[in-house]
């Protein structure tokens, strides 16, 4: 059994893509890093789509503030992206300094390669990457795409994180069970007041369920945490867990291979979930 006191998350990576939500994501990431006493790395991706766009002969940009059109050029676009990156870097620096978090910042123009490389060195990736497209990809597709490229734990957040959010864990007896409990414990414990922790257990039968509960209780006792443990039917989805839990806007911690997560990615119910999802690898 892994040492329950060991901190699972020590290094955090936050993905920034020049979207309007970047400021909100930075605030969330520094808040989490502060709570978990983790290092924070910012990763700004210069979207290659924009550079291609700027190279097209008819490329025009319609100003958001004047609704007038002006031509785009690759060099000007590069400069604009650098300015945007610099602005985000300053914002990131200020937020991290205010939170007293150790930080670093990186800019890259190859999202996928860089992500794969960087995520292997990190324990947690925070992303809400909706990209620059007005018709953004769905959360389910984002989760799928992200998980396909990273090997670390991923934090998908729909908005700001409520400082007093309850933490919920979904266990299924997989090999990642202790790691899932470790992340949840770290989130619940590293707060001014320990956050309410709810553990949902789903198993094929009664015996397996009791065994899982016993194991979870033992792990939690070893970590010195109080938790509410609830049984869910084997085929329960994440939405059922969220609605069964206490308190609004929970953080739901789930293993990467939990059946409920796989089911969630196949349906559009993830788009309506409305809670923060922490997928533990």
């Amino acid at each position: 059994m892994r040492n329950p006191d060991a901190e699972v998350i020590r290094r955090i990576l936050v993905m920034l893509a020049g979207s309007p939500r970047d400021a909100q994501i930075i605030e969330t990431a520094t808040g989490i890093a502060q709570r978990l006493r983790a290092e924070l790395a910012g990763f700004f991706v210069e979207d290659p789509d924009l550079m291609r766009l700027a190279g097209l002969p008819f490329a025009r940009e319609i100003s958001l503030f004047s609704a007038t059109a002006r031509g785009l050029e690759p060099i000007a676009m590069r400069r604009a992206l650098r300015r945007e990156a610099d602005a985000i870097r300053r914002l990131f620096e200020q937020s991290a300094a205010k939170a007293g978090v150790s930080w670093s910042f990186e800019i890259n123009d190859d999202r996928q390669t860089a992500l794969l490389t960087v995520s292997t060195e990190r324990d947690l990736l925070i992303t809400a990457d909706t990209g620059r497209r007005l018709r953004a990809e769905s959360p389910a597709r984002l989760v799928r795409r992200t998980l396909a490229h990273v090997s670390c734990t991923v934090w998908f957040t729909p908005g700001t994180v409520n400082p007093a959010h309850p933490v919920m864990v979904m266990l299924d007896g997989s090999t990642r069970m202790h790691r899932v409990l470790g992340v949840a414990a770290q989130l619940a414990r590293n707060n001014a007041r320990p956050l309410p922790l709810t553990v949902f257990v789903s198993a094929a039968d009664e015996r397996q369920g009791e065994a899982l509960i016993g194991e979870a209780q033992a792990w939690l006792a070893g970590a010195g945490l109080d938790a509410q443990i609830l049984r869910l039917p084997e085929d329960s989805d994440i939405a059922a867990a969220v609605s069964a839990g206490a308190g609004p806007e929970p953080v739901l911690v789930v293993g990467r291979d939990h059946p409920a997560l796989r089911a969630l990615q196949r349906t559009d119910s993830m788009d309506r979930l409305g809670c923060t999802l922490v997928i533990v690898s």
Partner: protein
Amino acid sequence: MAMVKPLGPASLYRRCDPDKFDFASTEDLEDIEPVIGQERAMEALDFGIGIHHGGYNLFAVGPFGIDKQMVVRRFLEVRAAGGDPPNDWCYVHNFAVPDRPRALELPAGRAREFRRDMEQLIEDLRNAIPVAFESGEYHARVREIEESYKDTREKALTELAAEADAHGLALVRTPGGFALAPVKDGEILDPEEYEKLPEAERQRIEREVAELHDKLATVLHQMPKWQRESRNSIKALDREVGLYAVGHLIDEIRRKYEDLPPVLDYLDAAQTDVIEHLQEFRSHEEPAGLFGIALSEKPSFRRYQVNVMVDNSETAGMPVIYEDTPLYQNLVGRVDHMTHMGALVTDFTLVKPGVLHRANGGYLVLDARKVLGQPYAWEGLKRALLAREVRIQSLGQIFSVISTVSLDPEPIPLDVKVVLLGERLLYYLMRAYDPDFSDLFKVTAEFEHEIDRGADNDLLYARLLATLARRESLRPLDRAAVARVIEHCARLAEDAEKLTARLQDLTDLLREADYWARDSSHERVAREDVEKAIALRIRRTDGLRKRIHENILRDIVMIDTDGARIGEINALSVIELGDQSFAQPVRVTANARLGEGEIVDIERESELGGAIHSKGVMILGSYLAARYCLDRPLSLSASLVFEQSYGPVEGDSASVAELCALLSVLAGVEIRQTLAITGSVNQHGEVQAIGGVNEKIEGFFDVCVSRELTGKQGVLIPAANIPHLMLRQTVVNAAAQGRFHIWPVRSIDEAMELLTGFEAGERNADGAFPDGSINHRVEACLREFADLRHEYGRLTTGIGEDAKP
């Protein structure tokens, strides 16, 4: 020669017989208002207060020391007690014109209440507004509006993105806005691949991109409008929430003041202002300020405070105010400032009331001399009375000497009776030189400086003493002491038939007599205590008199009290220094010789003589010419001088002495130096009354006593001054014993006969004076001068050789 008889003791001092009083001491007497003998002044006050027309303010005229202020205030207080207290006034913020604070009038006592209510309101607002805007419901509704705006915007962009998607294009957010581009396999088409597309395909893409650009521009054009609508919706929500939080609080106050429309108007304006500035009040913290004054432009709850200018909640009747320091600001009020970082800041809460505000609806008593002594105070007072409103303007504003930001508070209507106190000279000067004065002070209340002395008034005076003694917590006076005080008050009035009305002197005498009574362990103030108080008061300031007296006794100042001399006479002058006056005998000498009829007043020539003194001397020339030289020119040159006098000489009370000295020279008869004389003379030789007769007699008496009274010494006084005699007891006693004499004279002839022992002489049927008489001698001398002058003229010019005078 019918010699004038000296005055008997009864004429020298009018006693007040204590036995005529039927009380043992002033304890037995009831209080009396200290306005004895001031009936005319009281009638004027009564009239001035009663008449309600503009300009009927009062000027109480009277000399110093009669305590006009106390008398007027007591009179006004009695009248004011029967009236209703006037309304309260306060200043509140003017939301429409912030630098012009608004004046509100409330019934007496309600301004303070209104201030409390507004303070409570502020406290409630301070809590209620943030609470209302911190509620979950409010935030939910704001989010709803914001999301609605966001949804509208996103929907429009998403629809456009979907349309673009349908055409194989992507709507992309760029660092500066939006752009459209063709997509292949989920990614924007590379420029090189784009160039490889068929011409028709490129044209289609570019056409569709252009069309979507137009639609995008249309959407973006609408965004500010949606944003404005969203902001307006939030503002409307804020107003709704604010009104809900604030409205019922202000409604409570409204109900309380529904009988006062101006207050309701103000509350409406305040409510509107609160609602308009909800954003600034949503924080629990006030804007940074200095001593509570906001330094920023942001509004503060301080603006809803009430500055009570006039609070009559504890005023019984109409106010009666006396202002001892009538500075301009103390009269009309002021706007205070505070300095901060070199700048002066102010607001309506720093408006301070003046005495005109506090006396509004009642009476204001001011000392005219003090008002005139303060820069612009008189102008400020006049302006307020003429305009019938109090407008607070600093002198700096009026004269534009400073240009700092200040306030111009709304003027407050003024309804006040002003009573100015002042002496007669001031009154006449103001009336003569200020054209507004007559319009503003139409009622004059003249206070007498003395009252008649008689049996009735003596008793009233005794009651006055009783009242003053009680008011000053002094011992009661026994009736002998009362009688002595009355006698002294007649002396102060310089008239045996009058009593001084100067309550200040009277009160001082009572205090000092009480002190000596305590010193002597007397339970009541006795006559001897009064005597001691009078004597020691004189003694305390007697230094200069003693020095002059000593100089006379040492013959440094030459005053003879024995023997006789031609052309020299003892005159009597009075020196007034501070609260002391005493007489100084002065030797007046005369010289005469042939001349052209001029009498030289050496005092005037040396610019020591005053105008009245010069007039007296000029009368002498006229008298001599008219009496002795009807048929020939007055041909003498005479000079008169006050010997050993080195200061200014004023008054004509020595003109009899001067004439007598001159007649002595012309007649060649000696004047008795045992006598002194005082009085003025007219062109017909009649002796007229003078002032300070008591001091003059006592001055010469003291010199004679020091050298030894011989029974021949005395003073000649104008007969008209007999009623003024209230001489010191030692003089009266000496006169009773025949050791000193006071002769009343009516004419210069009577005086000359007493002074020389020669008959003055009346013209007989032939028009000639008796041989050997003084007048005969004078006439002969002047005739001789005239002849000599004629002869001298004939010898030098040859004119009139045959003419004989």
